[in-house]
């Protein structure tokens, strides 16, 4: 079983009806010596049936965005601004009642570590069923039958329904988590590094399963990872985050063929391409900035190989440097500007 490489470019977001719109989202962590601006004015749109990849280093704010969308951030993180619009309503303004309904019904989430996201003292069947029972009027038997069906769908034998998480392998656990995420057929699924804790072979299987399920059920995915090679395979569109901001966004193929931002270029050079000639891997020198006092101007300038005089003074505007290809970098002053 191999994953289909789907960077063939489905229609761009503008032709799709938007499912969820994140507008100028800001999240801060209140720390002892000031607040950390983990997400600083991020705007992102996910179309119906679209898979959007969100990539960046650890600490760039990817997971914080995911949790802010569902409003499950734990203190000391607080949302300080922006809107998350879904179906004409702002999730950030919703009452607790509406929020409980929205969660899992409209947006579900697959967490990074399947072992840690399953309750060790409940069977996987019960963990599928309690999402059903709390959202739908459904009898115990019907819920159980539905849970068995969900397990079959993700490729687990239905009679494993009474298994506990520790009785399943890593890959099966992640499948079980996907079954839970899928049970209410939500239009949007957030996947926060769903394959990071798995070995490479199992990663492929899970990725193939996700692709297959998406084709069958047509939900949208916000796919968060630091692994660019995964995004090639699964995303329609990719956004690159650096230090709490989106620095570049384009269709997958476009981004891979023409990475504009020096940071994106660095990310691309730091993992091996699946196809094409061998080349030397390079990392990005330096480490992510301290977000309590982020660098002035462009936040990437201390690490940037193409640094110019303007970079530490003025923050670059987020512009459409090529058709449907957005970037925030002083190398591209106008929409006609191209790399090299």
């Amino acid at each position, binding site marked *: 079983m191999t994953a289909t490489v789907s960077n063939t470019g489905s229609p761009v977001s503008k032709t799709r009806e938007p499912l969820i719109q994140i507008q100028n989202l800001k999240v801060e962590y209140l720390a002892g010596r000031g607040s950390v601006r983990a997400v600083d004015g991020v705007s992102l749109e996910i179309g119906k049936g679209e898979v959007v990849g969100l990539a960046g280093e650890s600490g760039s704010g990817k997971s914080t965005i995911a949790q802010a969308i569902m409003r*499950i951030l734990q203190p000391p993180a607080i949302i300080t601004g922006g809107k998350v619009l879904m179906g004409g309503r702002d999730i950030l303004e919703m009452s607790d009642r509406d929020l409980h309904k929205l*969660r899992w019904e409209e947006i*579900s989430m697959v967490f990074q570590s399947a072992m*840690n996201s399953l*309750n*060790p*003292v409940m069977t996987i069947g019960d963990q599928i069923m309690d*999402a059903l029972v709390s959202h739908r009027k459904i009898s115990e038997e019907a819920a159980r039958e539905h849970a068995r069906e969900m397990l079959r769908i993700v490729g687990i034998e239905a009679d494993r329904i009474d298994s506990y998480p520790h*009785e399943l392998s890593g890959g099966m656990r992640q499948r079980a988590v996907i079954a*839970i995420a899928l049970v209410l057929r939500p239009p949007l699924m957030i996947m926060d590094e769903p394959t990071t804790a798995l070995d490479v072979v199992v990663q492929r299987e899970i990725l193939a399963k996700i692709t297959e399920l998406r084709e069958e059920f047509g939900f949208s995915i916000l796919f968060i990872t630091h692994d660019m090679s995964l995004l090639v395979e699964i995303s329609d569109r990719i956004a690159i985050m650096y230090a709490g901001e989106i620095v570049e966004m384009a269709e997958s193929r476009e981004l891979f063929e023409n990475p504009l931002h020096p940071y994106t270029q660095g990310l691309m050079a730091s993992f091996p391409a699946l196809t094409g000639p061998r080349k030397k891997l390079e990392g990005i020198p330096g480490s992510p900035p301290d977000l309590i006092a982020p660098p002035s101007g462009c936040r990437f300038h201390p690490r940037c190989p193409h640094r110019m005089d303007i970079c530490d003074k003025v923050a670059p505007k987020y512009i459409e440097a090529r058709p449907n290809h957005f970037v925030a970098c002083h190398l591209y002053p106008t929409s006609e500007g191209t790399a090299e």
Partner: protein
Amino acid sequence: MSYILKRVVFYLIAAWASITLNFFLPRMMPGDPGSVLLAKLRGQGDIRPEVIDAMMKAYGVSDDPLIFQYFDYMRNILTGEFGVSTSWFPAPVTEVIRTGFIWTVILIGTALIISFAIGSILGVIGAWKRGSWMDNVTPPVFVFLGSLPYFWIAPMLLFAFAFHFQWFPPRHAYNTDLSPTFSWAYISSVIGHMILPVISVVIVSVGGWLLGMRNTMIAILSEDYVTMAEAKGLSSRRVMFGYGARNALLPTLTSFGMSLGFILGGSLFTEMIFAYPGLGYLLINSVRGLDYPLMQGLFMMITFAVLLANLIVDLLYVRLDPRIRKS
């Protein structure tokens, strides 16, 4: 299920070891129960030698070698024969312990369960609403109460509520004018006599349960499965109890089991101060009256209770934590 079997075997060995220690330790101490008994009997005046022989036989005092005595002792224990109490003569030890046991279990068992329940629930809620006024107030208050010495607070309660205000009876487990039947008068009298001692125990012990539960719960709440349960849109109650408390309960249960066993030995102060006719009260009286058979029986009882309580907790663990069922 081999896990259960292993535990049972373990506890059987532990029981055998403690029974054996219980036999040899007193006999290795200077002075021995036999001569004390003898002196006691002689002190009652001129008694014919046949009577002394008969009494010695009744009490099970013998001059056989230690190893034979040990086998006799083991046989007696296996057949439930603990001899006759000298201070409650001629009641057999088992009979004396049985009544004391019932009162202790009623009194201290109730106190422990109430204290565990209150402490755990306050701990769970405190952790859930961390930083709320309730979470800021309850732990210090109960820890303060818990640090009051029991031998001070219990007599104070007794003085205030039994003597000064006379809201509660000052001593014993029930009104001795009533016959022990299943009548409302008798039962309400038993409950009335329990209230003050139970309150005294609960006051000093809630703090420990509260802190233990709160700390474990806080750790559990930062687990991904709790976040995921919240993301699932489950009700707060379901997340708090089904996902949080259910997991936080596991480590707390061990300490609950330990205290369950120590109910029997640890009730000494309570039963002394409130003159409650349980095992602690019996133990004090048996020591005062040098009633060796009763003492031995009580120590045995306490040992078995600790072991049994731990076995029960182990079995309960199997129910609560599916991860233990394997291996």
